[in-house]
């Protein structure tokens, strides 16, 4: 029956059931992903963030929360210029991280 409205999926992240497989794979290639403190320097300095929403910080977070579609969306315009690596206060090798994510990412799993 069409009520004109329907159940909306929860926006909450459930850490009990969250799919961390991609995060674990990326973590294995790039363990310093864990040390992100979410300061946002990477996004602030990003040449692509202004026109694409690119944000390494959000990618790291999305990986840890299993939100694979956001990973794709937030990484789509990376030019690998390395500014984020230059500014990261924790010395995270963000380029390596981006490449690791790009390699391990599987489009079909993100659906």
């Amino acid at each position: 029956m069409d009520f004109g409205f329907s159940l909306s999926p929860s926006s909450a992240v459930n850490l009990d059931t969250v799919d961390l497989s991609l995060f674990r794979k990326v973590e294995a290639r790039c363990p310093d992903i864990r040390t992100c403190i979410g300061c946002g320097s990477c996004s602030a300095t990003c040449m692509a963030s202004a026109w694409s929403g690119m944000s390494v910080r959000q990618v790291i977070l999305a990986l840890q929360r299993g939100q694979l579609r956001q990973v794709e969306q937030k990484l789509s315009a990376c030019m690998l210029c390395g500014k984020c690596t230059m500014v990261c206060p924790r010395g995270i090798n963000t380029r390596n991280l981006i490449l690791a994510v790009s390699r391990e990412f599987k489009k079909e799993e993100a659906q």
Partner: protein
Amino acid sequence: MIYQGKQKIWSDYQKEIPDDHWFYVRSCIRQNFFPASEAHFVKIVKDVLGKDLYETEHHTTCGGIAYHSDTIPQETAMTIVARQFALMTEAGYKNLVASCITSFGNYTEILETWREFPELEVRIRENLWKACRREFEKPEYVCHASDVIYKLRNEIAEKATVRLVNHETGEPLRVVEHIGCHYSKMFPHKGVGGAEYPCVLSGMVESWGGKVIDYPERRHCCGFGFRQYLVKANRGYSVSNTHKKFESMEPYHPDMIITNCPGCPYFLDRWQYVIAEQTGKTYGQNGYGIPALTYEELAGLVLGYDPWDLGLQVHQVASEPLLDKLGIAYDPAKKYLGLNEKEIMKPGLPQVLKCC
């Protein structure tokens, strides 16, 4: 769960509830959806327990729905409430009892606001005088009707003919108690047992022999949320809230839900039908739903009133499985007979949710 821990919290939130002489204000929603509940509240308090409860046909809405739906300014709501107080003062009462949780919250909020901003009270007094030449005294006590039943729960238990146990197994029934948001979430000290582990309803359940279920989403709103339901575009959000609660309580296999708010029994009841239609899922046993009752209906049941007199037939979820568990006799043929055995017509049956 450490029960003693909860008792300790409850002891911190002992609310003073007057014994007698109440000025009763009804609920807009309940008068329409659960008229028998209010009628039985009056009946139990006045006739069964012999207390003094005063009502006047001159009282109006408290303005709560309009206030929470952002359609009237606060000052208007305050002036409406001031008029209720004036009616109470004129009738010579000092203890206000609201049937509606939102009204109760509204009264409490307004009194607290006046306490913080006395100049506002002065202005409202002027407004009221200009509008209808009335004056008021603030109530000494503001209670919710469920506070009164809570206060009288042991007296009711003494007179009870039915206990909240499965009459076949002797096991206490598993009861979900759902407290209206405006009862104590705004002012925890104004509710019996505070906001986190309120015991206004659990006290009744335990006193009448049932067992209260503590499930993770017990604090969650029923889904009404005023704007969430009243604006159709938001209704998906409303039903999703309710769905979340049912998913959370499901593993506990509750036998029933009791509520003390106008909206809650309505939404916890009706949305079970919508969820069943949309997801194919039901939460009671054998395809039935979980009956969601008002505390007055429950009090009426334990006192031995006829389920159809209590208005259980106006619920979407069939209450027969519950009545069977309790061992309460009922006549299925009379379910849809109204006052004076007048046919009130049988509703159509839903596709998924099993109803009798």
